[in-house]
């Protein structure tokens, strides 16, 4: 039960309270660049959610088995080379490189796969894939997971990692879809010339971030509420 609560909290946290875009500022580039039309924005959001889940899964696996201090793979190599069981091999310095490699190659793989076998899907969603490689939201999710895999007070397993990825992806989709709706509206508005484009988009994002600040403390409220409900 406690795990379930934790998962719910991680999910809500990533989607609403600490929304990736509006709170952590990751994924700003597509948030500003691909939010001119609602349909496109929604496609982008779905693609990000998909990729973020896949890459978090892969990166968690890499971290768990290779990169974290005391991971089984280097330990096995070390021991088979005759090292002592006490000493831990720490490869976490490679985390960043491996993460970005995994993200880039998985994106490319998925892109090629979808393009070959599901051309209509590629039309509507695959075209966003290359853009996602440089989307910091993906890397950020993996980094957050990494942080919690190094943190002794709250060790994350795969479910937690996926909850974060999914929440982050859905939160990104929500933010970019709202933004796109507003920007379609802004096309009909008499925005001062100097503000047109990125300027007004950022201010709208700022006001949206203000609105999302309203969710501050929801984690705590939900935690307490779930606690009392389950009791």
């Amino acid at each position, binding site marked *: 039960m406690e795990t379930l609560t934790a998962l719910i909290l991680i999910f809500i946290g990533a989607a609403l309270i600490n929304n990736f875009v509006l709170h952590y500022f990751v994924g700003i580039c597509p948030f500003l660049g691909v939010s001119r039309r609602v349909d496109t924005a929604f496609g982008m959001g779905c693609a990000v959610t998909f990729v973020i889940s896949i890459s978090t899964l892969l990166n968690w696996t890499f971290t768990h088995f290779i990169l974290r201090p005391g991971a089984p793979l280097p330990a096995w190599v070390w021991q088979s080379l005759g090292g002592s069981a006490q000493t831990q091999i720490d490869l976490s310095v490679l985390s960043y*490189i491996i993460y970005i490699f995994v993200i880039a190659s998985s994106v490319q793989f998925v892109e090629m796969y979808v393009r070959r076998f599901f051309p209509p899907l590629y039309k509507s969603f695959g075209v966003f894939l290359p853009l996602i490689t440089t989307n910091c939201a993906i890397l950020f999710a993996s980094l957050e997971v990494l942080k919690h895999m190094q943190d002794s*007070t709250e060790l994350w397993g795969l479910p937690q990692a996926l909850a974060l990825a999914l929440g982050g992806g859905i939160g990104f989709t929500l933010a970019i879809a709202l933004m796109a709706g507003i920007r379609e509206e802004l096309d009909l508005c008499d925005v001062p010339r100097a503000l047109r484009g990125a300027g007004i988009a950022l201010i709208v994002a700022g006001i949206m971030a203000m609105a999302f600040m309203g969710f501050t*403390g929801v984690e705590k409220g939900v*935690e307490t509420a779930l606690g009392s409900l389950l009791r």
Partner: protein
Amino acid sequence: MTQPTPGKGGYIGQAWLVILLALLYGGGLAGVENALSGKIKANKRAETYSVIPDLVPGSDPDKTDEIMVRGENAKEGLVYRTRRTDGSHVGWVLPAAGQGFADRIELLIGLDSGVTTVRGMYVLNQRETPGLGDYITRADFQDLFRDKPADRPLAVVKTDPAADNEIRALSGATISSESVAAIVNRALANFREPLRALAVERSPGNARPDEAVE
């Protein structure tokens, strides 16, 4: 990423540069890590250890050891056992974390050796509202926890404290204050008994610092 073209030669053959660089960079990074990891670890350690004398008065940070303790909720947690310079057990530093108003709050709780009194509290990490909730990092707030009873839950009140287990909330930041108290309460509930058991089991004098403790 650009679309790779199907190679005329072997694909790997084309990528020799990448592989070479990978090896080079990997080695280089390992070297950097080797050179710096000691210092980074020391930094991390220092963060906690520098406040230990403050949290448990009389303790010597250099004589502190880290032990894993299984709490009441069956989860293992790291606990610092602090000792005087002469090696006698003086108290515990218990790291705790929990949900604050905005985000997770991480803090350290200083306890006496019998876990009867809170000797101090220090907030390590927080992201509370600037200018409001983040007042929990101020010394005057943290001092409120000094010498509070550790055997029953602390309560947050808005008036001047009447009982000894009451803490006056920060004006305007009740929730952050309450969150801190709640984190302390929960950590104590989890570890009060196991720590007391440890303290009795290894009363000063016959404790061996590097012995693994279950």
